[in-house]
């Protein structure tokens, strides 16, 4: 089982309640660490995700600044991560959460740790891959990547032989 008493507390499937408000510095710090661990685990980041930090912060702002707000989910995520680290130690906590979680992401999330996985980890993975991670699989473009004007010298996608911009 992943986590302890807090992580496995049953909660409703819907978004956990939270106001439209900024996260605290501590919450941002823990969530950023979680985001960085995604790139470290799949070895698909060249700058420890620092180069996409502004994208991630804009994502967090979009998720907490308007309804439905994710502040309740992010607050829950911080508490879950803290308990996971307390129980498993830092390295093992993130390994379990990302690779050995045993959580079915297609099933309704009914515990606090399932909420962490579905509403936070899974979405962070999508942000991380879309903004940087896909490049480590030879891609030049990916859904959600804003590469700049297509009229640059460098093509915006891998192109067929002899095809320039």
């Amino acid at each position, binding site marked *: 089982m992943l986590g302890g008493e807090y992580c496995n507390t049953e909660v409703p499937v819907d978004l956990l309640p939270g106001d439209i408000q900024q996260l605290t510095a501590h919450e941002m710090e823990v969530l950023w660490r979680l985001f960085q661990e995604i790139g470290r685990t*799949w070895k698909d980041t060249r700058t420890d995700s620092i180069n996409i930090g502004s994208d991630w912060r804009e994502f967090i702002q*979009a998720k907490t600044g308007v309804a439905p707000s994710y502040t309740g989910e992010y607050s829950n995520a911080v508490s879950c991560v803290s308990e996971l680290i307390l129980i498993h130690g830092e390295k093992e906590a993130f390994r379990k959460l990302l690779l050995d979680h045993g959580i079915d992401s297609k099933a309704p999330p009914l515990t606090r740790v399932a909420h962490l996985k579905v509403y936070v980890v899974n979405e962070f993975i999508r942000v991380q891959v*879309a903004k940087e991670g896909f490049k480590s*699989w030879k*891609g030049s*473009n990916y*859904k959600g990547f804003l590469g700049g004007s297509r009229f640059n010298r460098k093509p*915006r*996608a*891998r192109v067929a032989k002899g095809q320039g911009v």
Partner: protein
Amino acid sequence: MKRRDFEYVFIGSGVAASTVAKTILENNRLASILILEAGPKVPAQDRRAWWDYVVLDRRPYDYCYDKKGENQSVGKTEWSFDDGRVMMYGGSTVHWGGWCLRFKPEDFQVFSRTGTGADWPISYETLEPYYCRAEEYLSVCGDDKEGWTKRSKPYPLPPFPWTAADGEMIAAFNQLGIKPGKLPIARFRKCMTTGTCKYCPVGARFSGQIALENLLSDGRHTNLEVLHNAPVAKINAASKRRIESVEYLDARTGERYEAHAKNIVVCAGSYETPKLLQVSKSMYYEKGIGNDHDIVGRYISSHAFLIVRGERDHNEEEWFQEFDFPTLMSRTYDTPEMQQDGGKIFLFKDRTRPNVDIAALMIQGMPREEVDKVVRGTRTQELQAFMDDRGLFTNRVSVGRGQNRFGLPQTQIDFTRPPEFRALIDRRLDLMEKVILAMDYKVDPKNKRIRTQSGHHMTSTCRMGKSPEDGVVDENLLVHGTDNLYVCSNAVFPTGSAVNPTLTLTAMSLRLGDHLNAGGT
């Protein structure tokens, strides 16, 4: 019912209404115009909505599609209403792909050439200057050297390049004598190819909503008004020739209005336009406006959508689709000869393949080494095609049972393909399969098929014709027998073509705008 007065009332807010309104306002910035949209307004370029699309694959307007169980398919051929149109401010341009292909000259002469379908009362040559204007307006990125159709002006922007994954299909095309082409696609210069074209974060693809918002934000257009959540219930006639008003509900207040206008233009698509004419009965029009000869809603034409998918067991190049639109197409089988043989097809490579959803594998908890194996494993490619259609009198759209959540009557589709259709489809699928086999891919027979029929590109339900017996509207899109009721929609196409209809509708909208600016009837 409160009365309001305008010079023009438009019903619908998609490419047709926004383009005609823009053309009128360019001629007379003070023209008084009311645009009525039944659906809601969903914010465009909203950052939260865009992020939710990226991470959850959830479009903010998903609730504006037809829902399962809402409409009725009563013909022998199953008709799908899924994802076919968007009922919201901006209409289906909110989700369109921006594919902008001109019809070919023979598409305007289907009956003369084949004895089936109908001829257009206008020719390709008549529409050609409007095609040029439409391409500039929509900002079409195309290949001037293509040679598929005669053109008097170059495309406004160069084409998108073929992607790496197009390469092996291009080789197969060349081997089989199929000429490869670059898909002309509407994207403004600011496009950043973000792969989220169904909800662009920077407004880099034309939509009726953005076009109308631009008109509204121009301080000179003081008499332009756009209302969303305002379904139209009926069009009223003051005499046989004079159409005087439309009745609409402002769903946000619950109040009903009667908007009077010198000219009324119905731009409500191929489903709603005929239904609205059918229900607009009066002592002058017992069967509904324009329906004295019982042809409103008939002659449904819609592309047959053919696919052949192949698979191979290795993908060492680690290809996945990087644009959200296809770049490779061919019109080699979109010819008069194929038209005479029963149906032209327009070939294009599936915009979603090859593809590996890397993030989904990571979400499952798959370690890097395993993800690499999947990425380098099975690769699929798919060739797709639209086939042209000639409407049958017996195929009809009409008013269904009950109303939908936007206050529009539900839709009944009575659609049956003729018996010879299956053999024709099989011949076309065989042509497509040769391409996939030439790529050295294996084809599972279940992946060589026709998709369930739908109305994504439905046309002809209020078709143009030279006489009231032959068509609902004349060559200027005026409803036969009236002085001031126009229809501007795919519904007026006498027949469809093998290619997407929106560029042609835009050209027709610009032409109608010029006609109205010149005084109309």
